């Protein structure tokens, strides 16, 4: 299959202009935010010389640090559970046919496209009904359970994409060579899908760290996460402290993207070896 050929010159120039426009649109606001986070001025939109004060304020704020630690705890636990459940379901969907497979497949897509608000409402009502019956208070558990609910789908899709590009003859060969099913999985399948699992885990981790709306609905006393904390601050007004926290969150996101790209590259290389 040959690629799509070059467009004509005028069209080409318009297309190129559009590319730069889109990239400018994507990155200029981020750049502005980063610059202002170093500005020594209480007025958020003005430049008042270089300072690191706002980052120091973040370090001194026990509320912000507490929220950050809550976010990390929730993200770690929800990612682990989502990765296990998502990976097993990806294997089931990609390697087996079973009754109700199509329904399951469709069900897995819903948490991805459902608007945050709708899922937040669903889980709020669910947990308040469950609390009436079982009597628990909202907090770590309810947030983590909710984050797992939307992360499973993302992990499953990323791992499935990896499995789909993989030859299942390798597993069959292992079984032919008297490996048990478990051994074949442990020594053949698992290492091959590992880049997919890591990619899915990073995505789940990012989604958990980023979520505001669902967390706001299912959180309880003492369990404010960093985005919920920042969202609360923004609604009260814009301050340089928010700029600094935002940039820290930005850098964390970028770090996770970089990691996922690295595993992506590893994915590409191992695919070549195959």
């Amino acid at each position: 299959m040959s690629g799509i050929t070059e467009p004509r010159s005028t069209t080409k120039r318009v297309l190129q202009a559009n590319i730069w426009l889109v990239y400018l649109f994507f990155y200029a606001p981020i750049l502005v935010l980063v610059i202002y986070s170093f500005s020594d001025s209480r007025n958020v939109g003005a430049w008042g010389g270089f300072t690191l004060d706002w980052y120091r304020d973040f370090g001194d704020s026990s509320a912000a640090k507490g929220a950050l630690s809550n976010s990390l705890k929730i993200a770690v636990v929800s990612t682990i559970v989502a990765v296990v459940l998502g990976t097993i379901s990806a294997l089931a969907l990609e390697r087996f046919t079973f009754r109700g497979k199509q329904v399951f497949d469709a069900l897995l897509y819903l948490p991805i496209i459902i608007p945050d608000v709708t899922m937040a409402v669903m889980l709020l009502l669910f947990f308040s009904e469950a609390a009436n019956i079982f009597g628990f208070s909202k907090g770590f558990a309810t947030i983590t359970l909710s984050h797992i609910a939307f992360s499973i789908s993302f992990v499953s899709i990323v791992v499935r994409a990896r499995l789909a590009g993989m030859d299942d003859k390798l597993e069959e060969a292992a079984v032919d060579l008297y490996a048990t099913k478990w051994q074949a999985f442990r020594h053949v399948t698992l290492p091959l899908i590992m880049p997919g699992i890591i990619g899915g885990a990073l995505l789940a981790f990012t989604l958990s760290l980023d979520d505001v709306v669902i967390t706001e609905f299912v959180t309880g006393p003492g369990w404010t996460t960093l985005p919920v904390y920042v969202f609360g601050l923004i609604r009260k007004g814009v301050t340089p402290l928010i700029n600094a926290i935002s940039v820290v969150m930005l850098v964390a996101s970028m770090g996770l993207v970089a990691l996922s790209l690295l595993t992506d590259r590893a994915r590409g290389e191992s695919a070549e070896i195959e």
Partner: protein
Amino acid sequence: MTATLEPEASIDADVATPEFEAAREQQKRRQGLFMALPAYLYLFVFFVIPLVIVIVYSFATRTRFGTELSGWNIDSYRRLGDPLVRDILLRSTTLAVITTLICLLLAYPFAYYMSTRSEKTRNLMLVFVMIPFWTNFLVRNYAWRVILGSDGPYSRLSEAIGFGEGRLLFTNVAVILGLVYGFLPFMILPLYAAIERIDGRLLEASRDLYASGFQSFRHVLLPLSMPGVVAGSILVFVPSLGAYVTPAILGGAKTTLLGSYIVTQFLSARDWPFGAALSFVLMAVMLTSTIVYFRKGGRTL
């Protein structure tokens, strides 16, 4: 029939007799279901049941003390026709449609041009689309709050150009800007995936047969990339319709949108049945668009 086959099967079990195959097939099916079960159960408990609860609540009665799960009625759905609610639904739909169209307009040429590049350039371009896709949505919306805020870069620029102090913050334009900024990657990625798969020779053939550039776009490229257009539009339209963070940060207090209106019902108005009915509207839109997408032969979003 089984009587004639059975002796054979017992003589040589390794030969794939229909029964042996069937038994193996059944075992595989059982194993598949067994493996899917944990995630299936999880989503059943934490997604399907909550979804049903929302529907049940939407028919419940609101009392002074909260919600009474009896005296079932459709009052909450009747209220969807109130002028105030109709305005909110209409405004949210309009904003979501405009957002989707702007995203399509920016993303389609972007994705098309990207697929004409060499593999190396393509991958690099893709990386720079993925970065905003992964970056915190709240932070990205907040960046616009800083830019559009009073005394911010935007007002300085518009004053310098001579537009006077054009105020964008807390208007619907700002909300659309924030939504486009937030969801544009969700349009680019499926469009690129769809366009990249197209055999370029088909476009060449149309040009060889004297189609103009526009004709070949209209009759070849566009129909072939339709799955990407539909997938991207769903991924932008549905979350835009239910947007809550963007209007809260960039929107005005007077122009309430559906997402914020739903949140108000739960967090301050304490009218859960009505909030549930409003959420159901969003769910219906989501379910309908997904069903349409899969019916039209779309495979992955």
